């Protein structure tokens, strides 16, 4: 046989003992039907296939069992008929020896084909459909990497394919699968080539085959005579690795594929001979890829020959069939001796790329002798088919200078193992290259991830910034709107003020009063601001103090006038309308009292802040507070007086409600003050002591109020108030419980953070607990006293009103929140005294409503309310408690011995807390 085309040469290469004769003696025989097949979902690079069957399904031979996901992926078909018994991890042929997802089918022994049929005339089918047909058959490159074949067949779309090369070189020692295939099924091989040629329309088709397969060459030539194909069978000298894609291209065409490119970039497509047969069987017979030719050889094998094996057959079945002598077998190699992998598990299945199993004896596959130092002989460079500098790459990989290795074209290494084969020092060079490649890939991946993370991080920052700006803009917009609304309101009020006195009725009297009030408030705020500005100016020695003082005086005058007008207006309607006035007046007074309280609270807070920061005019603030307190007392007194003037029958009732509201408000104050004090203690502020005193004072006040309430109640100890009494008590208890919980939490937090205030807080918690107990006792007493006279009517009534009350409370809360938000937004710009007044009013109303609601709720669900928390809150608390337990446990496990004692105690406390919460939660969720 003579070549019709010139054969080129490639650099390097080796001539290892061929060992092919052993397995070419017998024809290809069919391996027996395995009892069980294992189909790995990933048999190649790319994504694993997705199973389309379930465990327990019966499948037929050739049925699709797993579908390709994405472009580089291949379908998987059942290779036997039977039942899917598992979709689970199973050892697969991989260098790592790891397990991967596999479909396991138990054969039913019937080997029943699914209905299948080839295409009658594939040339009539559009190319896309034909390629899709081949893709459906799950065909992947059967030479080495198992690259899905349809991807390569698409190359004709965006590349000009001049040359189609069919790789029949089979250069690795021992393997004879392709050789036998060509000898026995040359027609199928050529039929497959025809289909590929039809799809790619190459100008030139070449079959590269080594000169050590004369029978295969003859068989191909014989088949070619009956084929319409016009192709060149090119015989190349036997040299390892002439079967490498790039090496074969160099041999047949003399063209070198540039580094980092694919053959299609130079107009060449390569296909393995086994792949062409698979394509033929798929297209002509409609058989998907479910079997392949596998060479079983090696000194330990009884019958050294080629078998047609179902994909998924465990190696053990095949080895048993060829009567491998296990005692003689030293190593089981999958693939060739040069590039194959050693496996230890015989349950690993044959996959689409398994071309050879070598059951090597110890003489044939001796263990790798230990590596010695590189002697820089340069033999590796002489044999490298990729024309690299293996020695240099070895140093770089060993020294982890991966950048340099990359610059020396490490990624052009085909890992053929020629360098390791010739190395006189037995250095595992290929392993070093594989390691270096993996490291570089990992670094690249990390770099890519880091860049991605940076982009996301920057995007997030940008988003936050944008949100901030948007918020600012919204705020400004709203401020403008509010100002406009204010102006409109003012105009309206002015017009009304001119008409109102003329009519002199009650209807106009009320809004007038309000207007006057807000005027007064505005004047006051302005005055305060001016004062502040003046103080500021004086402090910093700024210019223009005189003008400021002048304005201040002016403002003072105005403020006084406004207030006078307001009080005048307030007094007049009371005298005029005796019938309806008291009620409205009462309300007004109540509001006044509430406002006064709020103001007082604010001032106190201001004082606390001032103490903490240690600047500002503390004395002035104190004076202000004193003034406010006086006002507050006056307002409350006025209110009470007005109230007592009312119908005495209802007065008691209202009075208790009022008192309760007061108590609630006071408690809120106490809470706030306490938390402020705690914060101060934690931050080590010097104002803490003073604040503590303040808290005590507030507590005293609270107690006084409570006493008053009890007094009042005892004086009016007739039957109806008694029920009210218990409900009030219950609500009180609920509030107290909430406080206790809060205090405990705070204390725990303090303990955890090691705050010095923890002891004090513990004492406070105990005190609170005592109080709670006292209240609970009181409640039981009250209940016992009222138990004799149950009120059946009261049961239904609160239920209906509860909902209403709740609604009211929530409405009020929303209003309050809205107003506060508005105020907060305005705070930076101009202050809005009217709004502040509104808020104060709203707050007072809200407090009252809340207190009433609480009382009602306590009546309705005494148990739940006693906890002072709803179910969800309880759940969250429970979860938090659990978390606290785990945190404590973790801390305990980490802690040193000396800390253990305290930590254990803490853990115990946390546990009991968690248990308590859990049990409560269970009780309520039932």
């Amino acid at each position, binding site marked *: 046989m003579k070549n019709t085309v010139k054969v080129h040469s490639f650099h390097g290469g080796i001539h290892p003992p061929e060992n092919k004769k052993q397995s070419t003696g017998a024809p290809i025989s069919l391996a027996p039907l395995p009892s069980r097949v294992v189909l790995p979902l990933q048999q190649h690079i790319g994504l694993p296939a997705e199973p389309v069957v379930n465990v327990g399904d019966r499948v037929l031979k050739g049925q699709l069992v797993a579908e390709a996901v994405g472009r580089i992926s291949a379908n998987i078909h059942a290779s036997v008929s039977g039942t899917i018994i598992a979709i689970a991890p199973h050892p697969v042929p991989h260098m*790592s020896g*790891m397990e991967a997802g596999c479909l396991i089918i138990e054969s039913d022994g019937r080997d029943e084909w699914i209905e299948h049929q080839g295409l009658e005339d594939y040339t009539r089918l559009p190319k896309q459909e034909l390629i899709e047909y081949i893709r459906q058959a799950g065909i992947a490159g059967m030479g080495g990497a198992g690259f899905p074949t349809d991807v390569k067949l698409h190359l004709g779309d965006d590349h000009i394919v001049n040359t189609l090369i069919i790789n029949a070189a089979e250069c690795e020692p021992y393997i004879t699968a392709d050789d036998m295939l060509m000898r026995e099924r040359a027609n199928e091989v050529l039929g497959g080539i025809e289909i590929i040629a039809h799809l790619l329309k190459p100008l030139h088709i070449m079959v590269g085959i080594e000169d050590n397969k004369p029978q295969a060459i003859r068989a191909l030539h014989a088949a070619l005579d009956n084929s319409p194909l016009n192709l060149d069978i090119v015989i190349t000298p036997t040299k390892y690795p002439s079967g490498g894609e790039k090496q074969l291209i160099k041999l047949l065409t003399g063209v070198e594929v540039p580094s980092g490119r694919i053959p299609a970039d130079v107009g060449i497509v390569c296909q393995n001979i086994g792949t062409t047969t698979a394509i033929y069987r798929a297209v002509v017979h409609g058989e998907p890829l479910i079997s392949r030719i596998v060479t079983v050889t090696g000194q330990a094998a009884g019958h050294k020959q080629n078998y047609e094996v179902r994909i998924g057959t465990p190696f053990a079945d095949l080895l048993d069939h060829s009567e491998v002598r296990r005692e003689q077998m030293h190593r089981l190699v999958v693939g060739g001796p040069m590039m194959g992998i050693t496996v230890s598990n015989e349950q690993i299945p044959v996959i689409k790329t398994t071309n050879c199993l070598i059951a090597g004896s110890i003489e044939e596959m001796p263990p790798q002798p230990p590596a*010695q130092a590189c002697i820089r002989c340069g033999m590796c460079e002489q044999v490298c088919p990729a024309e690299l500098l293996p020695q240099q790459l070895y140093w770089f990989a060993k020294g982890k200078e991966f950048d340099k290795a990359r610059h020396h074209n490490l990624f052009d290494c085909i890992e053929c193992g020629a360098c390791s084969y010739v190395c006189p020092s037995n250095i595992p060079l290929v392993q070093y290259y594989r390691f270096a490649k993996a490291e570089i890939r990992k670094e690249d991946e990390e770099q890519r991830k880091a860049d991605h*993370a940076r982009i996301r991080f920057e995007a997030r920052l940008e988003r936050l910034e944008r949100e901030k700006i948007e918020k600012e803009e919204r705020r400004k917009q709203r401020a403008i709107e509010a100002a406009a609304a204010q102006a409109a309101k003012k105009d309206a009020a002015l017009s009304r003020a001119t008409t109102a006195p003329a009519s002199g009725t009650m209807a106009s009297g009320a809004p007038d009063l309000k207007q006057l009030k807000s005027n007064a408030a505005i004047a006051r705020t302005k005055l305060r601001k001016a004062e502040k500005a003046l103080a500021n100016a004086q402090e910093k020695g700024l210019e223009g103090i005189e003008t400021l003082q002048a304005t201040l005086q002016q403002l003072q005058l105005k403020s006084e006038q406004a207030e006078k007008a307001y009080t005048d207006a307030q007094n007049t309607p009371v005298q005029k309308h005796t019938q309806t006035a008291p009620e409205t007046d009462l309300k007004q007074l109540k509001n006044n009292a509430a406002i006064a309280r709020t103001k007082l609270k604010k001032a106190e807070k201001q004082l606390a802040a001032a103490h903490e920061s240690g600047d500002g005019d503390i004395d002035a603030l104190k004076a202000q507070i004193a003034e406010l307190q006086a006002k507050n007392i006056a307002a409350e007194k006025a209110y009470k007086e007005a109230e007592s003037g009312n119908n005495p029958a209802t007065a008691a009732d209202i009075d208790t409600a009022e008192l309760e509201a007061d108590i609630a408000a006071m408690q809120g104050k106490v809470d706030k003050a306490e938390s402020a004090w705690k914060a101060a203690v934690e931050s080590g502020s010097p104002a803490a002591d003073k604040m503590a005193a303040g808290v005590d004072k507030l507590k005293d006040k609270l107690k006084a109020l409570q006493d008053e309430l009890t007094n009042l109640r005892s004086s009016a100890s007739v039957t109806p108030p008694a029920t009210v009494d218990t409900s009030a008590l219950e609500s009180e208890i609920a509030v107290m419980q909430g406080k206790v919980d809060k205090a405990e939490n705070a204390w725990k937090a303090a303990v955890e953070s090691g705050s010095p205030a923890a002891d004090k807080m513990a004492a406070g918690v105990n005190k609170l607990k005592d109080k709670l107990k006292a209240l609970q006792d009181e409640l039981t007493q009250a209940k016992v006293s009222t138990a004799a006279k149950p009120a059946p009517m009261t049961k239904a009534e609160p239920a209906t009103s509860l909902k209403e009350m709740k609604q009211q409370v929530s409405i009020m809360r929303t209003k309050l929140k809205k107003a506060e938000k508005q105020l907060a937004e305005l705070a930076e710009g101009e202050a809005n005294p009217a709004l502040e007044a509104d808020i104060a009013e709203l707050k007072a109303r809200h407090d009252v409503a809340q207190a009433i609601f609480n009382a009602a709720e306590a009546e309705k669900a005494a148990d739940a309310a006693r906890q002072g928390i709803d179910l969800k809150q309880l759940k969250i608390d429970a979860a938090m408690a659990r978390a606290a337990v785990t945190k404590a446990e973790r801390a305990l496990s980490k802690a040193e011995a000396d800390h253990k004692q305290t930590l254990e105690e803490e853990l115990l406390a946390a546990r009991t807390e968690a248990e308590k919460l859990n049990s409560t939660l269970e009780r309520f969720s039932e």
Partner: protein
Amino acid sequence: MSAVLIAVLVLLGLGLVFGILLGYSSIRFKVEGNPLVDQVDSLLPQTQCGQCGHPGCRPYAEAIVNNDEAINKCPPGGLSTIEALADLLDVEAIPLDAEHGEEQIKKVAYIREDECIGCTKCIQACPVDAILGAAKQMHTVIVSECTGCDLCVEPCPVDCIDMLPIETTLNGWQWPVPKSGVELIATDRHPGIALEADA
């Protein structure tokens, strides 16, 4: 005399031309900011974890360039980052500062979803927006976006976030470092050979 004058004038002219050229190009091709900061930043792992004591990777990069901050304070980057930084800045590579944590295997956050109470605290803590969820709704981590920075673990009030090591899959598996051989010569292994040779 005129020759001297011509020479001086020519040199002056040349100086002027090049001066203008340089002046122009210094304005036209002005580099904004410090490019070194960008280079250092690109070498950092971008976990934004703050273990170095700076609020993010870029601030650390800025500190390295501007304030001579040590380059060994990045535990997520580990030794490879230190080496890359040392290479870039031409300084000695130093071992990782254990004060800022130790190099650990790569992890991703995982939310035990039935325990999540939907507080959104982890979402606010995540520097790369890798946590998905809304208030009172269950949250979950987008694994492909998670940098394993740890920042979401602490804020969780119910402690339902775990840092799980990334599982090795077939695709993620790496060839290990080859066992470095015994560096001796053949006669050391078989002393008999040497003796025979001597005899």
